[in-house]
């Protein structure tokens, strides 16, 4: 029976090993913060919209190279281009050149007559025949100008204006064969790149970042005073990956080393070190494999979080060896049987607490929950199935262990003395005061840990280029594409006044490039009438008989536009059919001031099918909702755990329960006094605290007066502190807050649990 379990576990371990080899070869790791966030349960189309916008940007890198004057800027751009176009470069230049414009001109040419700007529409509908004729003559006789068609195809010269209005979506303009813009005291060249490697492939980390840094260095050396601003998802992904891997090694290796050192100090024997090490390694490996199998991809933050698992999973090994110390090898199996009830109960509370993290529909949290729960179970199974089998030698009691274990008798114990009550009252005041001051914050930025220079570059680039914001947009839905385009037009009519008032600098909508069929027909009719008048006036004035060119009989359809490479820029905003409806996105430019958001949001009021989406706000309100929900769950959790404890320990149950409750309250009070806000990740830390803090009490009650139980609890406490303390060093605010919560809570619980131990000689029963 014993051997069967051991062999069975060995088989599981071997298959996990095989999976690990495969996993690390394919490195399916996620670094994208969005992947951590939940689907919006109310509006799946919002999620689809956000994903589509993010996917498109996944491999793109945009760069502005600037200098004091245009010549230096061009030289600087040439240096950067040469540097990033080398054979080994991970980047490929994206086409931003004239051929793209020619493709677009060819696509639109047959439909020229039905593409009008709103001011042209207004002018054509009220201009007199004389005015139309005069304009046509004037433009005809002017020295060569920017014509895009023959005179007959555009006698009033309307088309260049339409293109100018399209070009106004970007501040960059063609100049000397490059894209140029001027701003913040410099002349800039716009360069765009496409990453040839997946940003998420670990191992190649820093590939693009270092290539960009090399190009920057070369540029600064060759063109003094030049400057480069670059932004793009690949840079963020690489920064996240390198940060995560360095945190993983700090936290994972740091806590592993600490645990092994403790084992060595306590047992002065190689066997416990090897076995505890094996249980930890297997715990992490199984956790990773199961997570990878369930979620397909594993997020880097899951691994960082998982590194702290070491600090918890070693508990079972500690308990076994602490109890085993000084006993003959023959007692191994009965000893394990004696430890199992307490261990299983402790495992159950921890696993339940971890799994409770997964109640929130955050894919990232679910991964962390599954990772930690399976990791604990695997470490436990390794201890239960293998330790007695492999641990055959003697394990004498060391003096360090004796001294440590003896410290329990000197540890204060709660009694009904005035000093204790005064202490309790002081603690009560501290807790109440702290809770009073405790604030909350539900901000999506908790999840981000991008280096400040990347964020500031991104902002500067957005400012200079007038890029639309990906976090706030309008989602326009309708029964078919025609209705969507008409609703977009209605929305734009309400946005125009805001643009005029400079609340926004502009918007980008599919209907700018593709007016609805009805609008196209109306505009074609309007321009036909006006241009006929203009042509006849010109005929009269010149004595010739020019004719107006013929245009397509059909309208420009979404299918035609979207199948052309000319629509590449606008395509991500055309979501297509989701369920019964067709959707598109209208993006906003120059939305720099968050205080105007309510005014912009109001525009959607009364417009059918138009929905304002503020991703930042939605995520924050989601974080808030789940903070409250999880907060409620914690209270329920404490009640449930108390019931569980009462079922086992009857009237003594409070001894395991109160320290954890106090740990939670003291942690919250500390946050309050320190001005740290309460946020979802603090609450999640408290949830875990509930599951793990009770463990110590359980062990102390299960094995009262047993010095080895105290030794195990003490060791477990110290190693847990170390691993979560190290998590507190994480640069991701969410993980840091989580780590700090665990650190403060664990210290308090660890100090208070022995204070609540049974009086000597008493037993639970």
């Amino acid at each position, binding site marked *: 029976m014993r051997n069967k379990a051991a062999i069975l576990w060995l088989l599981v371990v071997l298959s996990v090993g095989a999976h690990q080899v495969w996993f690390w070869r394919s490195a399916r790791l996620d670094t994208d913060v969005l992947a951590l966030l939940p689907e919006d349960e109310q509006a799946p189309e919002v999620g689809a919209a956000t994903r589509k916008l993010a996917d498109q940007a996944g491999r793109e890198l945009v760069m502005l190279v600037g200098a004091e004057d245009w010549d230096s800027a061009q030289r600087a751009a040439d240096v950067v281009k040469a540097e990033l176009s080398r054979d080994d470069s991970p980047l490929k230049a994206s086409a931003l*050149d*004239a051929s793209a414009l020619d493709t677009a001109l060819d696509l639109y040419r047959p439909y020229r007559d039905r593409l009008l700007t709103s001011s042209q529409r207004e002018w054509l509908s009220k201009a*007199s025949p*004389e*005015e*139309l004729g*005069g*304009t046509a*003559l*004037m*433009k*005809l*006789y*002017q*020295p*060569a*100008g*920017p*014509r*895009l*068609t*023959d*005179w*007959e195809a555009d006698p009033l010269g309307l088309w260049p204006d339409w293109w*100018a209005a399209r070009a*106004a979506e970007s501040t960059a*303009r*063609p*100049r*000397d*064969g490059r894209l*140029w*813009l*001027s701003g913040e005291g410099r002349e800039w060249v716009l360069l765009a790149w496409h990453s040839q490697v997946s940003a998420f492939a670990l191992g190649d980390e820093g590939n693009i970042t270092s290539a960009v840094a090399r190009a920057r260095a070369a540029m600064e050396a060759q063109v003094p005073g030049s400057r480069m601003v670059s932004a793009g998802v690949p840079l963020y992904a690489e920064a996240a990956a390198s940060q995560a891997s360095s945190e993983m090694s700090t936290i994972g290796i740091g806590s592993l080393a600490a645990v092994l050192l403790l084992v060595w100090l306590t047992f002065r024997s190689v066997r416990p070190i090897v076995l505890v090490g094996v249980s930890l390694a297997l715990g992490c490996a199984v956790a990773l494999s199961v997570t990878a199998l369930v979620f397909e991809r594993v997020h880097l933050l899951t691994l960082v979080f998982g590194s702290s698992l070491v600090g918890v999973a070693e508990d079972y090994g500690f308990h076994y060896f602490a109890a085993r110390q000084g006993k003959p090898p023959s007692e191994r199996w009965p000893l394990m049987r004696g430890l199992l009830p307490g261990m299983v109960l402790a495992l159950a509370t921890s696993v339940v607490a971890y799994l409770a993290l997964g109640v929130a529909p955050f894919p990232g949290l679910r991964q962390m929950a599954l990772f930690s729960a399976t990791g604990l179970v695997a470490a436990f199974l390794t201890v239960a199935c293998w330790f007695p089998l492999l641990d055959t030698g003697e394990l004498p009691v060391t003096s360090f262990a004796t001294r440590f274990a003896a410290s329990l008798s000197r540890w204060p114990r709660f009694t009904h003395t005035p000093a204790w009550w005064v202490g309790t009252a002081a603690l009560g005041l501290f807790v109440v005061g702290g809770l009073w001051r405790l604030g909350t914050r539900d901000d999506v930025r908790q999840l981000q840990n991008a280096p400040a220079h990347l964020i500031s570059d991104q902002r500067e680039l957005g400012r200079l280029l007038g890029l639309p914001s990906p976090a706030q947009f309008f989602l326009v839905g309708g029964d078919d594409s025609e209705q969507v385009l008409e609703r977009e037009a209605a929305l734009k009519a309400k946005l125009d006044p805001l643009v005029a008032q400079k609340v926004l600098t502009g918007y980008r909508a599919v209907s700018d490039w593709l007016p609805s069929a009805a609008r196209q027909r109306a505009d074609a009719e309007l321009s036909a009438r006006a241009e006929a008048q203009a042509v006849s006036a010109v005929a009269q*004035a*010149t004595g*010739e008989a*020019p*004719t107006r060119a013929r245009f397509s009989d059909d309208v420009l359809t979404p299918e035609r536009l979207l199948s052309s490479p000319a629509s590449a820029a606008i395509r991500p905003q055309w979501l297509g059919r989701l369920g019964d409806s067709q959707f598109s996105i209208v993006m906003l430019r120059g939305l720099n001031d968050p205080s105007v958001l309510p005014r912009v949001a109001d525009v959607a009021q009364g417009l059918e099918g138009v929905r304002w989406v503020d991703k930042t706000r939605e995520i924050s309100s989601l974080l808030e909702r789940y903070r409250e929900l999880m907060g409620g769950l914690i209270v329920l959790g404490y009640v449930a755990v108390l019931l569980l404890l009462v079922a086992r320990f009857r009237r003594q149950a409070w001894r395991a329960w109160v320290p954890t409750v106090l740990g939670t309250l003291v942690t919250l009070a500390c946050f309050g006094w320190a001005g740290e806000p309460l946020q979802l990740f603090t609450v999640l830390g408290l949830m875990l605290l509930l599951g793990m803090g009770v463990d110590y009490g359980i062990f102390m009650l299960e094995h009262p007066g047993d010095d080895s139980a105290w030794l195990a609890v003490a060791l477990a406490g110290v190693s847990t502190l170390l691993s979560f303390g190290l998590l507190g060093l994480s640069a991701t605010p969410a993980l840091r807050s989580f780590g700090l919560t665990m650190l403060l809570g664990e210290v308090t619980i660890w100090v208070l649990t022995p204070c609540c131990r049974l009086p000597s000689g008493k037993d639970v029963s």
Partner: protein
Amino acid sequence: MKRVLLLVALLWGAAASARDVVSQVRERLADVPLLRGDFEQKKTVSGFKKPLVSRGAFLLSREQGVLWDTKQPFASTLTLTRKSLSAEQGTGAAAYHLDASKEPGLAAVNEVMFALLSGDVKALAKRFKVDGELVGAEGWKLTLTPTDTGLQRVFRSIHLEGDKYVRRVQLEEARGDSSVILFDKLSQTPPPSDAEAGRLAK
């Protein structure tokens, strides 16, 4: 002997690179801060059998811009400054105005226009491949082919002829239309009138 010398001189001239021609043309051109005169423009446009002929007067101020006033067959004005392009028909019935700060591409158009009228070969060489020859003791001819993709969309080539001043400009547009502009009565005086200065200040 004279013939031999002439032959050597010819060979010498042929061997000289285009760059030398450009600098020689620059030497022959007067460096003018202000230029005014009359123009005659013959424009060949597809759809029109006969060339469209217009006549008028122009003023070029290197610092401020160009005034292009057509008088025949109808009155209209064109004002091109570093900041804007505006046009108006004599009757005031039709007008339009482009702002260079909103449409920065206009700045490049302006630069080319200035350079063409004043024969600023150095500025032109930034955007065009310049070939040319010297004619007689004072004359010269230049052929400009755009190197800038934006200009390639507008012009196929530009031919300039002149002596101390630019006398003839021939614009071959990318879409097949062409214009020949002849300049006459060129002078560097008088300075802009108040009305002209007012228009240039826009």
